[in-house]
């Protein structure tokens, strides 16, 4: 447990740990803001002990060049190799909005699990995102007047959107059916409420993406963005007959959000045979004592690195407590 006031550098430590797995900032900070203002480089060294096997990860972040990654002193050629070494489950105060917040939070949640499950999934997500960026940039160059010059190029980017959106939507739908029992179990553990949880995938495509993307073409050109596809979808979670976004109390929504994250943790353990490290970034400030205690009980069996402004709770035993001030550990 890392304890210290805001700005003391607690989250930087979680950032460094997470960066060793996904090569990007958990706070979505740009690389240049991670590296100190007056420096060009930043280094992260991580030692991992997994089933008695030691490995080391050395990452050099550079403002000018691409990051370099060494795994056990061997240069890694793909960022996905890091995910094979080590994964984490992160809880942040923003995760508590998973139910109440915008659809992008829920899409990101599903996609994060998918990325952790396989390199194929990760590549599919990246291919979709890249196709979407390419199509949207192309749309910015097209007007209703010059449209005929671009029609052939737009057609092939549409084909890519169709292909990768369909792949991604199917991956998400399959994941949902596997994930639902996990969520139900976790929700019952932390709230003692036994109610059927049901998740439906709400697609921006009604029936046939090829036809609908073609139908939307004029609108897309005018709005200069792609209006249907996997990036416009959502999931709807119901608890019994209640819609989780509209009909649950704030406390229940937060408990459900935590259940979603715990379900993610457990499905990764079951399917990857590897235990993610739990990172809790300052979530206790947002939770009441009962939920906090329930959450801590659920993660008690795993390695967890926790940040907090104050030493929060009486019930738990902490293996090591580090107090932080102004970027230094005391």
């Amino acid at each position, binding site marked *: 447990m890392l304890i210290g006031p805001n700005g003391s550098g607690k989250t930087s430590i979680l950032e460094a740990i997470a960066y060793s797995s996904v090569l990007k900032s958990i706070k979505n900070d740009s690389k240049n803001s991670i590296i100190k203002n007056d420096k060009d480089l930043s280094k992260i060294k991580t030692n991992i002990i997994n089933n008695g096997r030691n490995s080391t990860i050395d990452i050099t972040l550079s403002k000018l060049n691409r990051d370099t990654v060494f795994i056990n002193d061997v240069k890694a050629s793909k960022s996905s190799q890091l995910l094979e070494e080590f994964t984490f489950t992160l809880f942040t105060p923003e995760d508590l909005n998973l139910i109440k917040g915008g659809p992008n939070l829920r899409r990101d949640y599903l996609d994060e699990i998918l990325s952790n499950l396989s390199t194929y999934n990760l590549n599919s997500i990246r291919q979709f995102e890249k196709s979407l960026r*390419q199509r949207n940039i192309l749309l910015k160059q097209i007007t209703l007047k010059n449209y005929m010059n671009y029609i052939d190029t737009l057609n*092939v980017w549409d084909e890519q959107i169709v292909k990768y959106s369909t792949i991604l939507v199917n991956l998400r739908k399959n994941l949902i059916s596997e994930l639902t029992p996990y969520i139900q179990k976790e929700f019952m553990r932390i709230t003692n409420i036994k109610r059927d949880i049901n998740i439906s995938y709400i697609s921006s495509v009604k029936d046939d993406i090829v036809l609908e993307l073609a139908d939307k073409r004029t609108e897309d050109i005018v709005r200069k963005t792609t209006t249907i596809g996997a990036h416009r979808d959502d999931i709807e979670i119901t608890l019994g007959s209640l819609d989780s976004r509209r009909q649950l109390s704030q406390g229940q929504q937060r408990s459900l959000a935590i259940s979603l994250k715990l379900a993610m943790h457990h499905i990764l353990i079951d399917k990857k045979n590897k235990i993610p490290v739990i990172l809790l970034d300052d979530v206790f400030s947002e939770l009441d004592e009962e939920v906090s205690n329930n959450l801590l009980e659920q993660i008690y069996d795993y390695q967890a690195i926790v940040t907090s402004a104050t030493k929060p709770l009486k019930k738990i035993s902490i293996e090591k407590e580090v107090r932080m001030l102004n970027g230094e550990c005391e």
Partner: protein
Amino acid sequence: MIDELSRLPGIGQKSAQRLAFYLLKRPKEDALRLARAIEIVRGKITVCERCFTLATEQYCSICRDPLRESDLVCVVEGPQDLVAIEKTHAFSGLYHVLGGSLNPLDGIGPDQLRVRELLARVQSDSIKEIIVCTNPNLEGDTTAMYLARLLQPLGIRVTRIASGLPVGGDLEYADELTLERAIAGRQEVVE
């Protein structure tokens, strides 16, 4: 000199500095020999008027070779990819250097590539098959689709090298055996 060197691909400020000091430390003759070599080769090199790879004459040595199959054309992004495929000795047709792949983010559409030139060749050179050997990534795949939609209606067979190459990789870094298999296992781009 350091500024000039650091503009080369893969050379950062530090490497540029090291190269510059190396050249200055060596006998004057060594450095000037390099300068002259660059001057001679660069002065002679043009692009082949048929396939647009680097050449020292109007047509490159491949286009001038009468033993190459002239109805089979391999489309590549750059001359470095052509070199990689030649190393496999698995391909006996001609080439067409496109100059990149479709990439709106980099401002590259068909007009920035040698698509019009390819179309002209198809119409005048009685080409039967086009193998699209652009890089095995999203942009390379999209370019293959684009060429297929453009050329298939003209009765040309358009094929794409088989997957099996590392996704997102560069063709020029693929090993020879993998590349040879990818060419042998090429498949028609479907409608």
